[in-house]
């Protein structure tokens, strides 16, 4: 399966600031996704990021708050903008490994705390 890394692994940020999370994959993948896991809760899909097109956001998530870049087939970034304490979550990127149909593999996550 694809090996996925995320930077930073964790951060503590002040409200009103922004943080950019990086996701790097060791192979070329078409589909990348960003999820949020709020404390003690399940994962929620934020957006799908495909190279060469605008990200597709799920209901409740907007580009101004969570801008996403996908410059190539191995890399993506998610920015959490104008942060508030409610943004404190684990943010995970995942990829669909084209070599194995429909299986998604997840990065280790970025634990964000907003004070």
């Amino acid at each position: 399966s694809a090996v996925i890394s995320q930077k930073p692994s964790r951060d503590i940020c002040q409200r009103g600031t922004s943080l950019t999370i990086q996701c790097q994959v060791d192979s070329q993948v078409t589909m990348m996704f960003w999820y949020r896991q709020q404390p003690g809760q399940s994962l929620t899909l934020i957006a799908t990021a495909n190279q060469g097109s605008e990200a597709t956001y799920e209901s409740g998530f907007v580009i101004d708050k969570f801008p996403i870049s996908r410059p190539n087939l191995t890399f993506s970034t998610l920015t959490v903008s104008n942060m508030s304490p409610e943004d404190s979550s684990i943010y995970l990127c995942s990829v669909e490994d084209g070599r194995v149909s429909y299986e998604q593999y997840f990065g280790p996550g970025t634990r964000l705390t907003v004070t």
Partner: protein
Amino acid sequence: AQSVAQPEDQVNVAEGNPLTVKCTYSVSGNPYLFWYVQYPNRGLQFLLKYITGDNLVKGSYGFEAEFNKSQTSFHLKNPSALVSDSALYFCAVRDEGGGADGLTFGKGTHLIIQP
């Protein structure tokens, strides 16, 4: 819209006994179904999937799951639990019929295997 229900917050099983973690789903088209496991302070790991074919699918670490279309269920099973299987288990679904390519997750079930 697609959804996943995991009715049990926690399942307790004695080591060596069989276990079942329940999952039901709702999609408008055909379901693609998945189980993931999350160990403390570790990333989300893929366990198994159902896409098509045999209703009983086998995955990692002795786990298997049975797809039941009439009951819209995809329960996770293991015939002999180990203490090391204690973790948080998520069921997830993707609708083959369209919509997001990302996954919709259940709220998770804590599996506790007692020695």
